[in-house]
């Protein structure tokens, strides 16, 4: 009895200790975040400082965690609905057996009919000598048999339709669905935790069948008016501006955080032939003096996937290369729109890793955006080169392209090495690709 008493005390003790420890960790995390927030408000810029956690993260199976998270958010709710569904499935089964009973009743009456037809046939044989009666009787029997045959076919069709309806009902009930009454509670809790704006959701909350579906929701009409100024470039997503600038000064590097930068060509996978900064300054001095003539090569030569899109207008004004990095929080609207009118010529998919992309990760993991799974769209707009990279993270690991629905991302890892080359696709017709208008929906980040 003492051991059982010991055990009964042990379990709640261990549970309590775990909860207290998790609480303490969370409190410490919140304290750190608050300190960072205050420092940021004072304008303090954090330096890059890799730490042991970042190294440890490389050993964690993040892709499996991400895929399990995606499975959980689309299936978890259906375990609650299983009971409901099982109950409804019983109902459906009852209806099926009831309809089977009527079918069997009708089939017994049909048997009676066919027995009658048989009897009639016998009478016909008996009275075959009676030639006056025979023709009318045989026509009657033929009509009956046709009726019987049609009835049989009708019944068969009815059975088929019943089976179809039952399997349709079963299919609908056994997809991953929240019980309807439960859905708004889950999505309100999510909105409270991640500051989502539920008013803008295009559909009523109880119509989102799972958290995963809610996460990639579209917004009500006119929730995001598009800046109609023809000279402006719009934000493709809802998010926070992390970095922006022009690459003239920084060569072809973008600063991830103070003290660490990554290269544009590694991020995009393109092989931009951006001349070195000396060439650029040398070229621009030459540009100022001599008028641009046809044979002078344009000093911003950027190879895109297809040489056809080299800068064809040597007389155009000087061009610079600009960049902008936008971070989406978990509660943000997660569809990606087109920033300008442009032609998408190439799509590049890097399977990479799935590190988290939060503020702490950008401060501690080097080459974060170059290592993570991402989809790069590259093409041209009226001012020249345009590229957009959508970068996934652990909880939001898959990127869905509306212009190429067949593209699958966040796939189980086949090979352990992470540096497999990107899969590239050049959109047809070559040189024109896929035309997108400013504000068009292009892609979406999916959970898991």
């Amino acid at each position, binding site marked *: 009895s003492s051991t059982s008493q010991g055990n009964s005390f042990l379990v709640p003790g261990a549970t309590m200790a775990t909860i207290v420890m998790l609480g303490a960790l969370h409190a410490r995390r919140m304290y750190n975040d608050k300190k960072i927030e205050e420092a940021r408000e004072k304008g303090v810029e954090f330096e890059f400082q890799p730490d042991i956690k970042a190294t440890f993260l490389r050993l964690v199976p993040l892709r499996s965690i991400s895929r399990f998270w995606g499975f959980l958010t689309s299936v978890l709710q259906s375990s609650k609905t299983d009971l409901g569904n099982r109950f409804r499935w019983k109902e459906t089964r009852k209806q099926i057996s009831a309809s089977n009973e009527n079918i069997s009743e009708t089939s017994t009456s049909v048997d009676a009919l066919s027995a009658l037809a048989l009897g009639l046939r016998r009478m016909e044989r008996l009275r075959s000598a009676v030639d006056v009666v025979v023709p009318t009787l045989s026509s009657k029997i033929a009509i009956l048999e046709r009726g019987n045959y049609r009835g049989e076919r009708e019944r068969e069709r009815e059975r088929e339709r019943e089976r179809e309806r039952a399997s349709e009902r079963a299919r609908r009930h056994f997809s991953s669905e929240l019980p309807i009454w439960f859905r708004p509670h889950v999505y309100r809790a999510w909105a409270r935790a991640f500051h989502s704006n539920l008013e803008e959701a295009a559909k009523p909350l109880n119509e989102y069948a799972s958290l995963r579906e809610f996460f990639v929701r579209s917004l009500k009409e006119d929730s995001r008016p598009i*800046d109609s100024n023809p*000279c402006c*470039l719009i934000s493709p997503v*809802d998010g*926070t501006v992390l970095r922006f600038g022009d690459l003239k000064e920084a060569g072809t590097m973008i600063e991830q955080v103070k003290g660490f930068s990554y290269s544009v060509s590694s991020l995009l996978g393109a092989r931009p032939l951006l001349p070195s900064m000396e060439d650029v300054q040398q070229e621009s001095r030459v540009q*100022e003096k001599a008028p641009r003539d046809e044979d002078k090569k344009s000093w911003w030569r950027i190879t895109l996937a297809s040489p056809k899109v080299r800068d064809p207008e040597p007389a155009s004004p000087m061009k610079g290369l600009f960049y902008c990095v936008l971070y989406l929080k978990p509660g943000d609207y997660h569809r*990606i729109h087109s920033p300008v009118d442009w032609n998408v010529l190439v799509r590049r998919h890097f399977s990479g890793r799935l590190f988290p992309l939060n503020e702490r990760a950008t401060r501690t993991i080097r080459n974060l955006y170059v290592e993570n799974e991402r989809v790069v769209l590259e093409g041209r707009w009226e001012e020249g080169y345009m590229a957009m990279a959508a970068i996934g993270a652990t909880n*939001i690991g898959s990127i869905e392209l509306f212009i190429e629905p067949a593209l699958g991302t966040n796939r189980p890892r086949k090979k352990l090495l992470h540096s497999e080359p990107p899969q590239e696709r050049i959109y047809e017709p070559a040189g024109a690709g896929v035309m997108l208008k400013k504000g068009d929906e292009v892609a979406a980040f999916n959970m898991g």
Partner: protein
Amino acid sequence: STVVLVFQAPISVPGDESVSSEFKFSIREGDRVRVGEALGR
């Protein structure tokens, strides 16, 4: 998740103020932006 835009746009050449179409960002670091709002002109 994160989205990175890289694009070409006109810049002004030192001493050649005639280029009025120089691209300029209309945002600051840390700003919250929404789909459809101008990042620059």
